[in-house]
């Protein structure tokens, strides 16, 4: 019984670790396989610079989305499991 309670206690954190692991895969795939190989918007030096800026910006957005997803998962966990209970529980 005690052992089961301990296992259940770890379960949401295991889910959080798995979600983070999957987000690393998805995030890195989108950045390196979709954003980085994007073709130049238009030919020439300016086009090349603009394309690189867009790639960096999109990668930045991806990183932000990853952190945001982590933040939401953390908040969900904290509010559902930590702050919803009283001191006496």
């Amino acid at each position: 019984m005690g052992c089961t309670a301990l296992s259940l206690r770890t379960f949401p954190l295991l889910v959080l670790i798995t979600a983070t692991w999957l987000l690393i895969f998805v995030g890195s795939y989108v950045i390196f396989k979709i954003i980085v190989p994007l073709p130049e918007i238009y030919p020439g030096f300016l086009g090349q610079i603009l394309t690189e800026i867009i790639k960096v910006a999109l990668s930045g957005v991806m990183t932000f989305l990853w952190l945001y997803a982590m933040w939401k998962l953390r908040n969900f966990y904290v509010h559902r499991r930590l702050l919803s209970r009283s001191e006496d529980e």
Partner: protein
Amino acid sequence: MLPINLTIVALLSFAIPFIATLILTPLLIKTLTKRGGLVQDYHKANKPLVPKPGGPAIIISLLLGEAVVYLATGSTGVLALLLVTGIAGAIGLIDDIYTLSGALKPALLILGSLPILLLDAYSFHPEFPLFGAVRLSIIYPLILLIAIPVTSNTVNTIDVLNGVVSGFIIIISIPLMFAMLLKGETTIALATLPIIASSLAFYVFHRFPSKIFPGDSGSLTLGALYGGLAIVGGVEVVGIVALLPAILNSFFFLSSVRRFVEHRKIKQRPTKLLEGDRLAASRNGSAPVTLVRMLLADGPLTEQQVAREIFKLAAFSSLLAVITAILTWGVPL
């Protein structure tokens, strides 16, 4: 099968740091106790005094182990790891003596990244599972500069309960070594043995009830070497995955306090001590969110039980790291 000379190097690079830690740690316990280098163990009702820091024993044994691998192989990568260990150890010792600020500590630890960068002991083609290597010729050296401060501080933040940091490092170093062997990085895989050996021997004294604490010199050095091994061995993604429980702990903490701050300066504690030496989560909304606090969300546990739960998380992330290694370099035959 390893050639005989590599087998001897493997044995020595494990045995020497293991024995060195077993000899040096009791000496350090005696010396620190005699000279008053003691701190309270806050997670016990009677607040026993525990010698701190045990870092010097860890640092010396790691340097000895890495020196064995370097002398046997002459690898530049191992030389870089020796220097990373020395620099991070020195910064950790300064921190143990003078208590560096939460911002200065990571800034100084950038120095720990320099040997890898200056000795060119890295590849800017990190390998990812399923889609392989990517070229990061410009951004990788910049990431490398912050990698050692990040890993050392991340491991430092998990040093919260008796035996946790030493046990955690033992568990998460195994997938790192597995990935290097899978990749064919035998030399750097050998350089992983000292960190496992030293942590294993230190765990004997650090486990509940602790006879010594590693201090920042111990935990920062272990974290810096772990990060260095992942970079020099070219198994960065595997290293990150295995370290996930500690990364999440840092993320929870930083996203709740919203600044780089020395943990001793946090007024609201994430946990509180109950009767019977049980730990409970603080329900105060302004207390920092940590891994331990989250593990205690469902009710109080003893310190040993919390440590066991953290080891379970480390074992799980290590399993994911092994899967990551197999997805990256194929199934071992």
